């Protein structure tokens, strides 16, 4: 990697933001941020969730208007009125949650962001050309809804490149990619840098920032807390800048449960047709988890993890009752409450709207997942089944203390908590029952590092106390940190699980890409 970071300092910068501030109500999402991006540099914007990274780039791209502060582009102060104006200046953006249209083709999606009137055939041809030049193959006629996440990102990048921008903003681009796909992306980005384009690279993954970026600006609580050359820092020093303190290291006691115990949760040959137009089918999924164990399930988003979670939790019923067995009992035809009564607990991926009802208080949300298993405690009055507010409040208090949930009111609505605190509450709600089986999908997605460490420790502790835990996650670091075995999902199939001692990044990457076919089939004997 050649260093051309000196270009950034020389001459006038490409983009200069000074004292940018954005206030939402009483919250200062960005507080007097200064940022300078030079020509031909990859500039990292580091920070935890909620540090103000997204708000800052939305202002740079004209999607949000700053409350105060200036943006200079090539030396002139500009008012970024809207994204179209930012694009016309030469700023392109690839969003974290893709701004693509599922029902339109790739070429139509690209056409929408081009301001010039170009017919679809020309766009398709140019998209193919750019795709070949930068190693981003796409089929312009494919419906976006049918594409994988990696392919969608390619369309986003090509869409951005077709406008020939000077500055490309990438918001958490690798969060949805396999390690191998990420490597391909880095090659593309380095090539763009060598052509003199600037890239603002937003991430919280320190290793890739150290590998790729020339300069880094670190945000915390909406303020700039540091500027550095990431190649001269260590991951630990960058993390300390981001978080402001050292991060708790997960303690993993060895699993001392005897290996001869029967599995607490088993899935035997689960196959399922897609349940909606953009849903994935499952093929002969088999797994079993014994007491004391954590099984980690890796995979790029949209490979059937959500469907597997729904099948295990009972949101989708199976054809035969013995396909899902919980604590040795057939549960495949039982609903969610029946499965909970067998001792299982579930925490879905989507916190608001799936894990919790946003407009209901914490105690009501507590009752919603536990009225069946803990009806004796929370419901009284015999057949009337009246809510016992005092015991609900007591339980909520216990969970809040146990999980260190920070909240602003005594019993706030679920939507009033921050993502990390709500997630801690939702996981605590299930842990409070001391379940024998816990299945959790994306336990720390969008959760800040401190809360994530707390949640991971709680999952490890639950397993070591004799429960079986299944963690579905796209965060490989997390899986390596807490799992005893790791399996990967590809196109609705689950690979054989590999003990953590025999696992490394490269192997899990191959498994996630479906390349590790040797272990991709029948694994019933091994587990």
């Amino acid at each position, binding site marked *: 990697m050649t260093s051309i970071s000196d270009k950034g300092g020389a001459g006038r910068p490409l983009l200069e933001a000074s004292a940018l501030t954005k206030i939402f109500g009483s919250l200062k999402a960005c507080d007097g941020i200064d940022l300078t991006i030079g020509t031909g540099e990859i500039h990292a914007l580091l920070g935890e969730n909620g540090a103000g990274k997204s708000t800052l780039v939305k202002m740079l791209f004209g999607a949000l208007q700053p409350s105060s502060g200036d943006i200079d582009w090539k030396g002139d102060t500009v008012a970024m009125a809207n994204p179209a104006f930012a694009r016309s200046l030469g700023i392109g953006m690839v969003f974290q949650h893709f701004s693509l249209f599922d029902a339109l083709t790739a070429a139509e999606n690209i056409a*929408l962001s081009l301001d010039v009137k170009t017919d679809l055939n020309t766009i398709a041809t140019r998209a193919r050309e750019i795709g070949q030049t930068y190693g981003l193959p796409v089929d312009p006629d494919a419906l976006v809804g049918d594409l994988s996440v990696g392919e969608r990102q390619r369309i986003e990048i090509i869409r951005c490149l077709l406008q020939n921008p000077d500055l490309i903003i990438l918001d958490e681009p690798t969060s949805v990619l396999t390690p191998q796909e990420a490597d391909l992306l880095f090659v593309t980005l380095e090539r763009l840098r060598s052509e003199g384009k600037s890239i603002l690279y937003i991430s919280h993954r320190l290793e890739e920032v150290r590998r790729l970026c020339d300069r880094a600006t670190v945000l915390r609580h909406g303020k700039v807390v540091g500027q550095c050359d990431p190649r001269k820092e260590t991951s630990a020093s960058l993390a300390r800048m981001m978080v402001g303190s050292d991060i708790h290291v997960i303690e993993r006691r060895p699993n001392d449960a005897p290996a001869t115990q029967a599995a607490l949760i088993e899935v035997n040959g689960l196959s399922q047709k897609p349940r909606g137009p953009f849903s994935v089918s499952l093929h002969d999924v088999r797994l079993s988890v014994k007491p004391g164990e954590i099984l980690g399930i890796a995979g790029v988003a949209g490979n059937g993890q959500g469907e597997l979670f729904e099948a295990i939790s009972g949101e989708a019923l199976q054809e035969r009752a013995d396909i899902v067995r919980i604590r040795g009992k057939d549960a495949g035809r039982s609903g969610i409450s029946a499965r909970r009564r067998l001792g299982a607990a579930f925490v879905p991926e989507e916190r608001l709207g799936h894990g919790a009802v946003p407009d209901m208080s914490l105690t009501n949300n507590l009752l919603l997942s536990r009225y069946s298993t803990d009806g004796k405690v929370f419901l009284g009055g015999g057949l009337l089944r009246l809510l016992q507010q005092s015991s609900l409040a007591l339980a909520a208090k216990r969970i809040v203390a146990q999980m260190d949930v920070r909240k602003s009111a005594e019993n706030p609505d679920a939507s009033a908590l921050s993502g990390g605190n709500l997630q801690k509450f939702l996981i605590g709600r299930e842990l409070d029952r001391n379940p024998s089986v816990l299945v959790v999908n994306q336990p720390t997605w969008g959760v800040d590092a401190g809360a994530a460490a707390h949640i991971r420790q709680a999952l490890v502790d639950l397993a070591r106390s004799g429960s079986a835990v299944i963690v579905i996650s796209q965060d490989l670091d997390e899986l390596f940190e807490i799992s005893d075995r790791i399996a990967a999902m590809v196109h609705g199939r689950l690979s054989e699980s590999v003990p953590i001692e025999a696992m490394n990044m490269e192997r899990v990457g191959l498994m996630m890409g479906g390349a590790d076919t040797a272990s991709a089939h029948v694994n019933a004997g091994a587990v």
Partner: protein
Amino acid sequence: MGMFEAILLTVATAATPLLIAAMGELVVERSGVLNLGVEGMMIMGAVAGFGVAQVTGSAWLGMFAAILAGAAFSLLFGFLTLTLVTNQVATGLALTLLGLGASAMIGESFVGLPGVRMQSLYIPVLTDLPVVGKFLFGQDPIFYISILLTIGVTWFLFRTRAGLTLRAVGDNHTSAHALGVPVVRVRYLAVMFGGACAGLAGAQLSLVYVPQWVENMTSGRGWIALALVVFASWRPWRILAGAYLFGAVTIGQLHAQALGIGIPSQFMSSLPYLATIVVLVLISRNKRLTLMNTPTSLGKPFVPDR
């Protein structure tokens, strides 16, 4: 004029208002807005068309008045749902009730008056061709407008930049906003187009189908048009096919009654509505087909963050 030709002509006359109203609603729903007020906008068009034609003596002026009335009435819906972000379903229902009531009040003095009929086309030789002559070359202008409308909407939606933008807004309004598309303006235009179409469909009823004013003369056609959009899974050509199918059912039951087939007339008159239900059930069985084509933002309110 043979029996077959007569049936063909009456089917076209019964199908045309459904086709026009449904085509307008298709555009509205493709933009992500669910306007259940089609019936109300249609009847406002019918009464405005009849009234203006009656006063001026010109069916054409009546037709334009109907289009304007429908568009203006839809603007009320647009203001409520797009600017004030009220619930689209409730507002649409309110629009229908308001339209039925207001038109009855406006049209009170029109009851029993002879209407002005829109003249049918006559091209020597061509119109006199056997069997298809009158169907192809001897119909009223609104019939031809309905066919042009189908071609035009198809071309607009799938061949023009503006149509692409409209579909994008209906698929994902947040993304469209992020790209700088004026979501609310696009939807206003779509809603007004839908209103104009519904108004025109109403004019067909009061100027062509039965050139007179009868209270509640749309008799549920707006609802059938709404069902047609789902039936057609938001595809213009399937709306054409669906409209003629429903037209045929409507006319079929009239002929069956005339022939004295021993089935209660109430049952026969309810056939088109029964057909609507059957078709909706059949369609909804195929989840993939319905969901793939359903505009994802349909009925969802849009409030841009700033």
